[in-house]
């Protein structure tokens, strides 16, 4: 339990980083970042066996791919806070000559990033490739990948969803950020995903539903359970219910903060709701 408390303290700082990164850049995607904070903190600080000195090939490590690259603010924060690059660099997010591009990329050599993402729908395929490489190399570690739920409207996702069970890619854990929101509004209005658990089940996935994707203990437990389900002939998917904008009252549960940064006053308000636990990055 004490460890959960520590993870929550990290999550609070990561949320401050997200608000401050996007405010400084006057752009970016805070909503989905805030919603996935528990998941990302749990992955990097509790679940994954990973090496912050960073090797591109990830041999002998658990590795993570972010398919919905627009939630880069949360990823950059957890990468910096877990030692991949200096925390100070978070201030350069979306600025000219920065390694912290609007959407994550290998192009500027930022440690922790293994493929560019942002154009949606591609990350799951890449993760499958990395998982197959692990099998070829006799590497028993796990590949994690996160996608948005709106992202599931991309056709390539379903090509990948069909492929993974057929080829028994059972060292893969996909998590879907099931917040029900996308840029143009609620997913059910824009293009309904229908019965998502049934879809994945019918494709042959081991399906888990995580009802409390913003409760740290639930997230940690779900990820641990998912790991126990690997190696059994099926890929695993966690359908993770989250609230976009979680942790800041005026940003929570709406698509309005999908791709919009807070102004000065809103930033102050947001930060007043989030404890500074590890020290803010300097500006």
């Amino acid at each position: 339990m004490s460890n959960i408390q520590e993870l929550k303290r990290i999550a609070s700082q990561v949320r401050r980083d997200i608000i401050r990164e996007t405010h400084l850049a006057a752009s970016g995607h805070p909503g989905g970042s805030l919603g996935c904070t528990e998941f990302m903190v749990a992955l990097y600080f509790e679940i994954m066996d990973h090496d912050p000195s960073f090797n591109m090939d990830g041999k002998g490590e658990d590795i993570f791919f972010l398919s919905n690259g627009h939630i880069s603010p949360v990823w950059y924060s957890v990468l910096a806070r877990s030692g991949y690059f200096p925390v100070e660099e978070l201030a350069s997010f979306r600025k000219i000559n920065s390694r912290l591009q609007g959407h994550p990329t290998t192009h500027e050599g930022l440690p922790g990033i293994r493929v560019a993402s942002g154009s949606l729908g591609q990350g799951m395929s890449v993760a499958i490739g990395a998982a197959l490489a692990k099998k070829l190399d006799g590497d028993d570690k796990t590949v994690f990948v996160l996608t948005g739920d709106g992202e599931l409207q991309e056709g390539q996702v379903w090509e990948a969803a069909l492929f993974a069970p057929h080829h028994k890619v059972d060292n893969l854990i996909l998590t879907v950020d099931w917040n029900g929101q996308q840029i143009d509004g609620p997913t059910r209005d824009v293009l309904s995903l229908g019965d998502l658990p049934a879809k994945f089940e019918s494709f042959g996935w081991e399906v888990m539903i995580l009802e409390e994707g913003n409760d740290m203990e639930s997230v940690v437990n779900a990820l641990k359970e998912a790991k126990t389900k690997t190696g059994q002939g099926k890929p695993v998917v966690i359908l993770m219910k989250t609230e976009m904008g979680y942790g800041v009252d005026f940003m929570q549960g709406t698509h309005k903060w999908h791709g919009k940064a807070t102004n000065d006053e809103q930033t102050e308000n947001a930060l007043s709701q989030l404890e500074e636990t590890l020290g803010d990055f300097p500006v």
Partner: protein
Amino acid sequence: MLDQLTYTEKKATRDGFGAGVFELGNQNDQVVALCADLVGSLKIQKFIDTHPERFIQTGISEANMMGIAAGLATAGKIPYATTFANFATGRVYDQLRQSIAYSHKNVKVCASHAGLTLGEDGATHQILEDIGMTRMLPGFTVINPCDYNQTKAATIAIAEHYGPVYLRFGRPSWPNFTPADQKFEIGKALLLNEGTDVSIFATGHMVWQAIEAAKGLAAEGISCEIINIHTIKPLDEEAVLDSVSKTGCVVSCEEHNRYGGLGDAIAQVLVKNNPVPMEYVAVNDTFGESGKPFELLGKYGLGVDDVKAAVKRAIDRK
């Protein structure tokens, strides 16, 4: 020299790819082949029989295949992602762009049935825009070998180059005239025949068309320099400029739209360094149709007579 450009056998460039990837697979255990339901067409069955664990069948889902290839490359594998040229480029352009080119992944995109000479299947499959599309992707190497032997050599050679490669080849049986023991050097144009009146820069199947044309023109007293541009990007600019400084005019030959392909690549070099008269032998901004390979080459301006006529026009403009 021109007399020595002969062949004893016609073989398809795609068979050269199949032979190359099989040989490479035996030498290099990091090579993984992927295919989107076109194993027979890509001639990779021998690789699959020998190395079943290093073959990935993706089914008819090329976007997924390119992503998987990028993931394999991330982990240090050398993926050869194979399908028809149309499905290897236009259909998956954003995957090539983001997951492979921008991410600088060591993926070999291997594309058969390029151009008009795939024949009867018609324009849906006869891609004529792929060289242009792949040339525009930063970091991509673009290769279009001319015959079976060269395709085999190129297939093996690209494994030694770290970075994304588009390897383009075709369906029909075609004169196999380059040496079986050739060493393929990426980016190094090959002088096939020395000449003084015109420089013919050709790629892929059109290299043989250029040779036939040059033989015919020699009988009329016209001396053609023929250079095989198997690597369109990076282009061997030195070879282009050296030849042009001698001949003073150019004909480019490619089984591709006149926009964006080899001709444009050469024209860019000429405009900047040595503007000389130039004629394109290329498809004139249109789609193809069903028919036999040579019927199509003739109808769409890629016949031997079209090359000859282009040479004369170029020389007249000097």
